């Protein structure tokens, strides 16, 4: 217990962050450690530059978008709670999460819906709540690489949108997005074990 309070002192608002994100104390400590390591000038927050320094992110096709997801609403910095809040999407779903879900007011950040929503907003660049054909095409271009011609990419994008599009507006809304993935084990595929 003593050690816990000392950790809580290390991490500002540690307890409230833990309550919000559901991370364990150990995970939070690990993340805080990482946060400070990324924050190279000891600013107390992370800028885009800090995240761009991570080498492997540069080669990740979605790296830029994922970095961007840490900076909602165009802000230039992300503090530790914000940092953890994004990562909380990838906390594995545990049994106690589903049990305690009902009494809690907000849905936990690692719920299926929130996991999906995180992925969704990586597609939805203009934040209009819909993945347009153009946005789909952009993602495809990132993911498929150079081997497929632009024309074929566009075909794929068309088909992908059409496949999920149910109301015929030529774009994929979040509901449609969720529906197209209803057979997938999102809880498993969007979780990282160490983020307990």
């Amino acid at each position, binding site marked *: 217990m003593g050690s816990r309070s000392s950790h809580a002192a290390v991490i500002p608002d540690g307890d409230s962050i833990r309550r919000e994100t559901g991370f364990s104390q150990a995970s939070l400590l690990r993340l805080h450690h990482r946060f400070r390591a990324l924050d190279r000038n000891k600013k107390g927050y992370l800028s885009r530059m800090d995240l761009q320094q991570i080498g*492997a992110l540069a080669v*990740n096709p979605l790296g830029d978008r994922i970095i961007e997801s840490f900076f909602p609403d165009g802000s230039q910095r992300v503090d530790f709670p914000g940092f953890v809040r994004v990562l909380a999407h*990838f906390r594995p779903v545990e049994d106690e999460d589903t049990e305690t879900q009902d009494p809690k007011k907000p849905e936990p950040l690692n719920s299926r819906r929130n996991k999906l929503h995180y992925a969704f907003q990586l597609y939805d660049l203009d934040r209009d709540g819909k993945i347009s054909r153009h946005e789909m095409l952009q993602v495809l271009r990132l993911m498929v690489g150079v081997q497929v011609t632009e024309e074929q990419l566009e075909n794929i994008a068309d088909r992908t949108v059409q496949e999920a599009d149910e109301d015929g507006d030529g774009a994929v809304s979040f509901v449609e997005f969720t529906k197209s993935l209803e*057979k997938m084990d999102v809880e498993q595929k969007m979780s990282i074990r160490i983020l307990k």
Partner: protein
Amino acid sequence: MLRAAVSLLALPLAGAAEEPTQKPESPGEPPPGLELFRWQWHEVEAPYLVALWILVASLAKIVFHLSRKVTSLVPESCLLILLGLVLGGIVLAVAKKAEYQLEPGTFFLFLLPPIVLDSGYFMPSRLFFDNLGAILTYAVVGTLWNAFTTGAALWGLQQAGLVAPRVQAGLLDFLLFGSLISAVDPVAVLAVFEEVHVNETLFIIVFGESLLNDAVTVVLYKVCNSFVEMGSANVQATDYLKGVASLFVVSLGGAAVGLVFAFLLALTTRFTKRVRIIEPLLVFLLAYAAYLTAEMASLSAILAVTMCGLGCKKYVEANISHKSRTTVKYTMKTLASCAETVIFMLLGISAVDSSKWAWDSGLVLGTLIFILFFRALGVVLQTWVLNQFRLVPLDKIDQVVMSYGGLRGAVAFALVILLDRTKVPAKDYFVATTIVVVFFTVIVQGLTIKPLVKWLKVKRSEHHKPTLNQELHEHTFDHILAAVEDVVGHHGYHYWRDRWEQFDKKYLSQLLMRRSAYRIRDQIWDVYYRLNIRDAISFVDQGGHVLSSTGLTLPSMPSRNSVAETSVTNLLRESGSGACLDLQVIDTVRSGRDREDAVMHHLLCGGLYKPRRRYKASCSRHFISEDAQERQDKEVFQQNMKRRLESFKSTKHNICFTKSKPRPRKTGRRKKDGVANAEATNGKHRDLGFQDTAAVILTVESEEEEEESDSSETEKEDDEGIIFVARATSEVLQEGKVSGSLEVCPSPRIIPPSPTCAEKELPWKSGQGDLAVYVSSETTKIVPVDMQTGWNQSISSLESLASPPCNQAPILTCLPPHPRGAEEPQVPLHLPSDPRSSFAFPPSLAKAGRSRSESSADLPQQQELQPLMGHKDHTHLSPGTATSHWCIQFNRGSRL
């Protein structure tokens, strides 16, 4: 039926048995001169018998599957073992001695490799590596645990006096026995689990374990065997160390051999472009070479061939032709199923040979109980540890199935037969026990595992069709997870998988894949491709004729947007589709894409009456598998078909998928484009010449078009142009709208052989002016005429006649959007009309269209929008065919 198979087998068997006794007599006889008929059984005996056995096994399979009820209840492996028992009994009765045992040599060299190759090659690699940790744990730790605990417990049983003293075995003998009896058998597991359909994770864990534990089994068996041969007194501490070291040597060495051969195989298939026919052979040869090499070096051959299949698949599949792929798949499945059948049948037959085994109830019962108990215990313990690290823990039900699914099989039997009786005096007892264990696990557990799985409500595997969304999002998730691991700073599984994929993409695939095949291996593309083929095939099954008029019969159709009609007939047919075009609908839809959709829809509508034969041929699977060079074109063709299908089927969405225009692709393609452009421009120029005089709008643009043809790469992305070729006909005229033009528009409208300006002077052309007026005034509400049938008839008559009847229905030919059309408002109408005609555009409209279009750099492209010039790769369009059509072009932004 079963009896028939048996008696068929009995004949040659009896012959084989009696042959040796007859042989000594023959040398004594004088040479009989030229024989008219000679019986040469001995020369063909061995291959003949092999063929017969396989035939019997196959026939038996057919017989089993005659009744669905039986096969749904009883696993095939059980039936085969029982059949083997029956056959063995017959052989024993006929030949008075046991024949045709499962020889370990035959088993390891010929029967096992195809099964393992099949399972390795078709192993779902992603699933396998996702669960690699668990698989390795169960395979290594689990097998070691099973071997030692079973061996030690049996020894304890003997010490306790529960095993008869005539079983002369020490601790080492029991450990040896434990090592061979402990390994879960891939053949048995595969045979049973393939019919049970548990969920993929569970399957891959049990099955992966059974494949990978081979290395452990081989090492344990060899080490124990040599210890036994040396005698326990002579075993030194270094030997134990060597035993541990050999575990690594055997397993890693086997895997390395497999990977080396996988590399060679992939590399070889890269260069088989001109000798497609040997591609399947290469796959089998090199995989078999991997097996034999590993066997030669006393490494784990199963591991080698598993890794070979697992490693090479991605590249081999990309390199070899479609036909070869199918061949590999079916040959592999055939060989594996054949080997499996023979193995189980021979197992049954071998069990009959009572001379080889000696029964001891204590040993048999003890072994049965111990292997079940320790397997369960081992699984529970390991799972408990593993669950600390697994994202998705294995629950109790999974553990039950895993424990119960630990089937023993032919590997154990072959190993126990290989024991040396002089060194292992209790061999006969071990043989008997092994047979009982194998039979018990395969028959009893195999029979009951299905009801058990049902009763426990184990999550079954659900097979659902792949969708592009799932595929795409799955990739997205992978990348997201890799990125998040980067951010978190934990280099876990996703990180390494990501690194591996990048390495693979950068180096391995470049090295091992044919350049032309490289693209195809993108998974998203792959799914898209397969979806297309599936849809196309199902569509053809439902009545593919719907598609046919859109030029899909041309496999090498260069671009998706081309209407690609080569004949007047097609042209007219196409025009027929316009008969049901509702322009009102098109006008009210929101975007150009919607309009395109409608256009495509009507195009498809119009295609109903094309001979279906050609189309089917072009859609068959064989079609795809040709030269890699042509593959791209073929795919474009598939896409084309698909896209049209989609637009046809999805009218409720009002979404069209025809949007993109041809892009400059590879160099080869570009050349083609160049040619096409050259040809197209020729034709267009002529058309333009013809039309320029008619429509005010066009005057400037023919020059611009030249530039455009040069700079065709500057195409714009969004092309919303739609061309309608409209014809005023008597039907409309009958509605009283332009009554006067009826007399003036006689047949000559049809297709002047070459549309030059001179032709406009032809007297019959004068009528077109009137028609043009009509069209222009009615463009906003060209009446949907649903007289398609009538129109079709007139078309069919047109096919034979060079000139159409004059009483045509109003024709609106919908051409697919021009590839390079731009979004901006376009010239709304291209109305070829006689210069002398009184028609002119409403000035405001014409000017508006023109001024707007001139403001854009893309303007020139639009000038190409002639009837049937909608496509830039319009190589086969002869100018003559187009000229008689009047073209109305609708573009996004221009509301007529």
